[in-house]
């Protein structure tokens, strides 16, 4: 029905002052509970805009490292081959944004119905395919040691086809490999891919290296806690059918023991520990109620006397400080969720999401966005958020999405 109510509720004097457009707006059909959006998908491959795109989907995962994307077309494009650039722009009219750029690595044809899947990945994937032909000795390259961010940049520098902005490769700033007897732990062995080498550094420092939707390689601190401030909220009005949640304590631990480099002096690896307490396991500092988590990395050069807590004075990463960070990640109720949504904003790993779905998913708290999947097909746009959380919030500002 027309909205004549708004005419009736105004005086003749006021109506006289209205423009025709005011009147037209007044008698226009009343809006229903519907949001309409024009969605679009544009794919450019090898510099040519494809005109036969059926659908596309992509994913960015903080643990996966590089973004992936699949574009489905009716036939192999006349122009372009593997290693050419693929760029996908998609979304509603207010958020028609670049969702992926990378290189085509594979064509996957189907005979019937005839179609071909163009598979692209971010260039960081090259790091998983390149390894040095012979051992690289750390102390020959970095006689006085190097920070973890410098080492990651150095590893990326070796990989053909990979570019990055140095300012986007963050790190602890701690000089590694400077302790006498420890540098061999940082040697880059022949056959170890650049990605594996970077992952060893990431694991020891609790940072993650990944590539975003624009192809920027970033290294940021990502642990299992959300920031104090959410970047956006996902409520029932955003959540589509198929959302699931998971709360569990099987992996909850109230004590963390970290082992680092073994200098071969008979004292064993450097070590450190941290304890916490929770309602059902009790106090982790007491042996009787201890539920331990073991973490080891040969790149941790320093530690403390596990009984006295006295620091050994060695440079590099400290096992006790790593333990202090990990305890917050495990002394908690683990919370996970997978949430499909119609939301088409530009989102990405590392953001803090307030999942406001206590009634439906038993989750009403800030969570960390770990993976982000999107899909555009003949039913429009959907995104799926992979969220992890639990524990306490902390000051952990997110990287750009």
């Amino acid at each position, binding site marked *: *029905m027309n909205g004549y109510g708004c005419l009736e509720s105004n005086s003749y004097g006021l109506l006289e002052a209205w423009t025709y457009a005011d009147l037209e707006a007044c008698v226009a*059909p009343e*809006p*229903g509970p*519907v949001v309409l*959006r024009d969605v679009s998908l544009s794919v450019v491959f090898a510099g040519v805009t494809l005109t036969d795109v059926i659908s596309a989907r992509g994913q960015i995962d903080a643990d996966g490292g590089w973004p992936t994307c699949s574009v489905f077309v009716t036939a192999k494009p006349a122009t372009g081959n593997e290693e050419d650039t693929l760029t996908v722009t998609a979304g509603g009219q207010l958020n028609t944004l670049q969702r992926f750029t990378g290189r085509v690595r594979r064509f996957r044809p189907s005979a019937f119905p005839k179609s071909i899947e163009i598979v692209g990945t971010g260039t960081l994937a090259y790091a998983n395919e390149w390894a040095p032909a012979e051992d690289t000795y750390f102390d020959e390259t970095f006689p006085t040691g190097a920070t973890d961010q410098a080492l990651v940049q150095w590893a990326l520098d070796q990989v053909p086809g990979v570019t990055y902005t140095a300012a986007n490769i963050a790190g602890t700033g701690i000089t590694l490999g400077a302790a006498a007897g420890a540098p061999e732990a940082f040697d880059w062995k022949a056959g170890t891919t650049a990605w594996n080498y970077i992952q060893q550094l990431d694991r020891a420092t609790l940072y993650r290296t990944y590539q975003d939707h624009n192809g920027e390689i970033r290294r940021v601190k990502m642990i299992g806690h959300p920031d104090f401030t959410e970047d956006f909220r996902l409520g029932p009005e955003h959540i589509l059918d198929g959302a699931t949640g998971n709360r569990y304590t099987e992996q909850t631990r109230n004590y963390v023991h970290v082992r680092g480099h073994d200098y071969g002096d008979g004292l064993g690896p450097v070590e450190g520990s941290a304890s916490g307490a929770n309602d059902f396991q009790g106090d982790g500092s007491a042996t009787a109620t201890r539920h331990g988590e073991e973490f080891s990395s040969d790149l941790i050069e320093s530690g403390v006397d596990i009984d006295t807590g006295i620091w050994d004075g060695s440079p590099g990463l400290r096992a006790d400080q790593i333990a202090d960070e990990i305890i917050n990640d495990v002394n908690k109720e683990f919370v996970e969720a997978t949430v499909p949504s119609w939301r088409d904003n530009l989102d990405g790993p590392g953001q803090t999401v307030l999942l406001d779905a206590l009634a*439906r998913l038993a989750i009403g708290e800030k969570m960390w966005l770990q993976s982000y999947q999107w899909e555009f097909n*003949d*039913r*429009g746009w959907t995104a799926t958020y992979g969220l992890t959380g639990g524990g306490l919030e902390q000051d952990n500002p997110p990287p750009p999405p």
Partner: protein
Amino acid sequence: MSSFQVGASTATFRSTIRGSRQASGDLPQLTLGIYFPAHADWQALLALVTSKYGVHVPVGAGSIVIDIVRGPGAGTLTIDGLGSTSAILTALERSTYTVNNRTFGSADFLITGTPI
């Protein structure tokens, strides 16, 4: 006469009681029986069909989100004697042909405004 207008394009047609029906759903659906006096009437309405669209229905309260993938999208549907509302023309059919290019068919609308 009835009409369906999307932007600057308007199609006028004669809706018939026979063949018209309504159905409930996430959004109300309205099928109108239609009499096309001339082929041009069919063509005018055909140009306003949205053939690909997706309806996202959040699990909780909140707006239903409709993605218009292919076609002009929502417009104003005005039915003589019933009123008007916003709608998407999702399908059009001609099933009966008579002399002098006159045809009968039906049009399916997804009501995005106030139900009528």
